[in-house]
C-alpha cells in the first residue's frame, strides 16, 4: 500500500494509453480488441486500494500536473472502471469480427484513459486535458460504423463537444484567475466560492459540463450519439462518459456558498430535463434512443439536485456522496441496460423473457422502485434536494418507469441465435448485479445510516408514481396505444436545416462579393499616362532646357535675396 499512490494513479491512465499505442502497431488491432478488458484494471485497483487525498505530483508534465483521488472521485472511478471492464469484455466478443479493430481499440483505450483521468486529476489543467481526451475521442466511437446516421450524429456530437470544451476552458481560466492563478482543483473551487470570483465562471462551467452531461437544452447530441455507437460503446458513453460531466460539476461547483442565480437555473434546467427528456424518450422508436433520453432525464435529476444544493449553499460533504452514489448506480444500470438491449437480437424465446425480466428490474431500479438500489440512491439524493425537489424526484419515477416500459416495448426482436453467447450475457449480468448490489454496499459508508433504516410505510406510500405508471402502461397496452414518434435529437433537425440554409446563403453572398470586387478593380489610367508622355516630351526640348536654366538661375538669385 505504501507505494501505490505513486504508481496506481498514473498507471490508471497510462496503461490504457499504452494499450492504445499497441493498437497502432500494424496487425495488432484484432489482438488489442481481445485485450480491451485489461484497460480499466489498474483504475479498478486504484479505486479500491489507492489511498485517498494523497496527491501524486508529475513534475514537468503539462503545468506540473498532479493526480489525486478523492472520496467522490473514487466512487466515480470505481463505477466507471467496473463499467468499462465489463463493457470491455462485451466488446471483446461483440467487436471481434469488426472491420476496424485497430481504430476501435485505439480510441476505446484513449477514451478510457481520458475518462478515468478526469476522475483522478489533481489540477485543472490535467483535468481539462483528460476531459478533452474523453470528449473528443469519443467521436470516433460514435461514428465507428460509418453509417450516415452515425456520421450525422457524430457531427452533432463533435460540434457540441467542442463548444463545451471551449466553455469549460474559459470557465476554468476564469476560475483559475479568480483563485490567484492556482490550478489545484480544490483551490480553484475555493476560489469560485469567493465573492470576487468572475461571475461568468460558474455559468460557463455549468454550460460546458452540462453539455457533456446532457443538461437540457444542451442535450441534443446525446440521444443521437449514444444509439449510434456500437453497443458496448453506447454503454460506456451513457454509463461512464456522461459522468465525466457530472464529475466536472461535482468537482467545481462552489457548494457551500449560496449562489442563487446559477444554482436555480441549474436546478430548473435539470429538473425540467428530468421530465421532458423522459417524455421525449417515450416518443422514441429505438430502444437505445429511449435509453439515451432516459440518461438525459436521470442526469437532469442529478443536476437539478446539484443546482438546488448550489442555490442553497449546502455543504459539499453532504451532497457529493449522494450524487456520487447515484452516478454509480446509474452508470452501472444504464450500462447494463445498453448491453441488455444489445443482447436482445441474440436472445431466443426463453432467454428473451429472462432478458426482459432483467431489463425490467434494472428499469424499475432506475425509476426508484422500492427496495431496489435505485430507491436507495434516490432517497439519498432526496435528502439533499429539498422538499420540492424530493417531490419532483418522487414524481419522476412515473416518467422514468414509463420510459423504461417504452424501452422494453421497442426492444428489437431476436434474429437467429437462441442462446446468447456467454461473453455477452456475462457482462450484462455482472453489471446488473453490481448496479443492484453496490449501492447497498456503499450506502452505509457514505450516507452514514443503514439503508434499511428508512421508514417502510413512507417507502410504500411514495411508490404511488410507480403504481400510476403501471396502470398507465397496462392501459396503453390494453388499448394498443401507440406512442407518437419523434426524431432522435428532437430540436436538432430543424436547427440543422436552418444552419445549412444560412451557410449556403453565406457562400452565395461571398461569391457575389468577390465578383463585384473583381469588377470594380480600376483600369490603368491611360489618360494620365498620355499627359505624362506629353509633359515628358516638353522636357526633352532643348528650348525648354534653356528656359529652365533661366528660371533656375532666377530662382537661385531670388531665393538668395530672400
Amino acid at each position, binding site marked *: 500500500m505504501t507505494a501505490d499512490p505513486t504508481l496506481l494513479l498514473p498507471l490508471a491512465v497510462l496503461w490504457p494509453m499504452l494499450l492504445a499505442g499497441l493498437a497502432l502497431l500494424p496487425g495488432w488491432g484484432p489482438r488489442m480488441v481481445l485485450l480491451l478488458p485489461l484497460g480499466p484494471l489498474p483504475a479498478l485497483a486504484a479505486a479500491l486500494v489507492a489511498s485517498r487525498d494523497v496527491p501524486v505530483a508529475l513534475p514537468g508534465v503539462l503545468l506540473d500536473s498532479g493526480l489525486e483521488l478523492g472520496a467522490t472521485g473514487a466512487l466515480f472511478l470505481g463505477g466507471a472502471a467496473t463499467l468499462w471492464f465489463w463493457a470491455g469484455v462485451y466488446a471483446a466478443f461483440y467487436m471481434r469480427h469488426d472491420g476496424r479493430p485497430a481504430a476501435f481499440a485505439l480510441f476505446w483505450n484513449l477514451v478510457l484513459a481520458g475518462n478515468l483521468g478526469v476522475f483522478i486529476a489533481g489540477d485543472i489543467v490535467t483535468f481539462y486535458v483528460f476531459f478533452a481526451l474523453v470528449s473528443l475521442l469519443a467521436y470516433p466511437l460514435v461514428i465507428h460504423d460509418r453509417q450516415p446516421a452515425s456520421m450525422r450524429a457524430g457531427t452533432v456530437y463533435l460540434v457540441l463537444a467542442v463548444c463545451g470544451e471551449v466553455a469549460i476552458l474559459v470557465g476554468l481560466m476564469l476560475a483559475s484567475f479568480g483563485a490567484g492563478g492556482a490550478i489545484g482543483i480544490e483551490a480553484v473551487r475555493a476560489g469560485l466560492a469567493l465573492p470576487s470570483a468572475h461571475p461568468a465562471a460558474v455559468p460557463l462551467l455549468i454550460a460546458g459540463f452540462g453539455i457533456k452531461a446532457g443538461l437540457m437544452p444542451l442535450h441534443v447530441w446525446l440521444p443521437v450519439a449514444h444509439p449510434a455507437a456500437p453497443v458496448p460503446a453506447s454503454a460506456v458513453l451513457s454509463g461512464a462518459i456522461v459522468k465525466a460531466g457530472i464529475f466536472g460539476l461535482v468537482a467545481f461547483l462552489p457548494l457551500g456558498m449560496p449562489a442563487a442565480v446559477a444554482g436555480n437555473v441549474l436546478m430548473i434546467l435539470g429538473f425540467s430535463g428530468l421530465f421532458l427528456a423522459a417524455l421525449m424518450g417515450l416518443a422514441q422508436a429505438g430502444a437505445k434512443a429511449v435509453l439515451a433520453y432516459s440518461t438525459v432525464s436521470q442526469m437532469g435529476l442529478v443536476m437539478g439536485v446539484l443546482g438546488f444544493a448550489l442555490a442553497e449553499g449546502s455543504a459539499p460533504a453532504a451532497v457529493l456522496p449522494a450524487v456520487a452514489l447515484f452516478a454509480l448506480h446509474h452508470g452501472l444500470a444504464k450500462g447494463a441496460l445498453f448491453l441488455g438491449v444489445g443482447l436482445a437480437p441474440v436472445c431466443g424465446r426463453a432467454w428473451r423473457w429472462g432478458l426482459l425480466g432483467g431489463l425490467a428490474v434494472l428499469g424499475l431500479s432506475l425509476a426508484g422502485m422500492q427496495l431496489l438500489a435505485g430507491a436507495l440512491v434516490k432517497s439519498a439524493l432526496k435528502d439533499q434536494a429539498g422538499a420540492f425537489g424530493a417531490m419532483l424526484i418522487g414524481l419522476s419515477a412515473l416518467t422514468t418507469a414509463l420510459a423504461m416500459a417504452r424501452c422494453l416495448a421497442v426492444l428489437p426482436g431476436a434474429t437467429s441465435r437462441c442462446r446468447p453467447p456467454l461473453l455477452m450475457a456475462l457482462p450484462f449480468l455482472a453489471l446488473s448485479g453490481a448496479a443492484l448490489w453496490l449501492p447497498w454496499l456503499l450506502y452505509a459508508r457514505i450516507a452514514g445510516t443503514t439503508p434499511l433504516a428508512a421508514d417502510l410505510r413512507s417507502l410504500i406510500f411514495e411508490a404511488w408514481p410507480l403504481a400510476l405508471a403501471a396502470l398507465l402502461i397496462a392501459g396503453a397496452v390494453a388499448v394498443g396505444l401507440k406512442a407518437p414518434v419523434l426524431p432522435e435529437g428532437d430540436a436538432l433537425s430543424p436547427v440543422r436545416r436552418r444552419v445549412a440554409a444560412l451557410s449556403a446563403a453565406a457562400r452565395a453572398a461571398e461569391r457575389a462579393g468577390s465578383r463585384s470586387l473583381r469588377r470594380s478593380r480600376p483600369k490603368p489610367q491611360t489618360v494620365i499616362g498620355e499627359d505624362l508622355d506629353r509633359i515628358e516630351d516638353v522636357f526633352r526640348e532643348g*528650348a525648354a532646357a534653356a*528656359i529652365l536654366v*533661366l*528660371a533656375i*538661375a*532666377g530662382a537661385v*538669385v531670388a531665393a538668395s535675396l530672400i
Partner: protein
Amino acid sequence: MTGAFDIILCLMILGAAGIALFVRDALAAIAFFIAFGNLLGLAWLGLDAVNVALAEIALGAGVTGVLLILARARLLALGDDATCADTSAWLRAGALAACAGFVLLLAAAVLSIPPESGLDRAVAPLMPGLGIENRVTGVLLAFRAYDTLLESFVLLGALVAVWSLAPAGVWPGRPADLGVADVPMRRVARSFGRFLLPVALVMAAYLVWAGSDVPGGAFQAGTVLAGGLMVSAIGGAIGLPRSDLPGLRVALVLGPLVFLLIGLAGMGFGGFLVYPEGSAKAAILAIEYSLFLSIGATLALLVAGPNVIGWPDPAGGTDRHSDC
C-alpha cells in the same frame, strides 16, 4: 573714356549677330556669322587682346565658319535647307520676356563689377622665371598648363567623337569629300593649295615661335596649318588620309603626348607639370611645336567630319581627285 570706335564696333557686332541669328536663309546666316566673328576679332583688338583676336578670327570665325558651311552644304545635298519653321508667337513672347529679363539682370551684374586687370599684377613678376614675354602664353602653358593639357585632350576627344559617328562598314576609311566647289574652282583651289600649304606651314611655325614673346601661339598656328590643309584638301592637292594611318595617328597624338610626358617628367623636379629651373622656355616651346602640329591635323580632320559611305575604294590613294 570710351571711344566712339568701341561703341560703333559693338553695335556692328550686335547687328551682325542679329542677322546671323534671324535671317531666314542658312547660308546668309553663316556668312553673317563669319562676319560677326571677324568683327569680334576687331573687338578683341580693341581690348588689346591680340592673342584672343587671332584665336577668334582663326578659330571662332574661320574654322567654325567652314564647319558650318560644310555642314549646311551636306544638309542641302540631303534635301535640308536649314531654314526654320516659325515657332508660336506665345513661345517667342515668353522667350523674349525671359531673355530680356536675363539680359537686364546680367547687365546689372556686369555693371556692378569694375573692369580691372587684377591678375596681371600676379602674372607679371612670374614671367621672368619662364623666359618668355607673352603673358598669355605664360598663363596658358605655365600657370594654367593643366587646363591647356586637358583642353588639348578635349580637342583630340572631339575628333574621336566625330570619328565614332561613322556609319557601319566604313571603318577604317576616310572622311567625306570636302569638294564643295565646282570643277574649275577646285582646280584653282588645287593649285592654290599646292602653293598655300608650305606657306601656311612656315607661317604657322613662325607664329609658334613668336608666340612666346609676342602674340601668337600653338592654337593660332595650328589653325593656320589646318586652314592650309583644308584648302589643299578642297582643291585635291592632298587626299584625306585614312583614319588608321599610323603617321596620322602619331601626328594627332604627338602634341598631347609630349605635353603629358613633359608634365610627368616634371615629377622629377618636384611635381606634375613643374618645369625644370631655367629650361621652362625650352619645355614650353617643345610643347607648343608638338601641339601645333597635332592641333592642325586635328582641326583639319574635325572639319572633314566622320568617315562616310561613298568611298568605293578605301585604298584609292591620293590621286582620287586627279581625274579632272
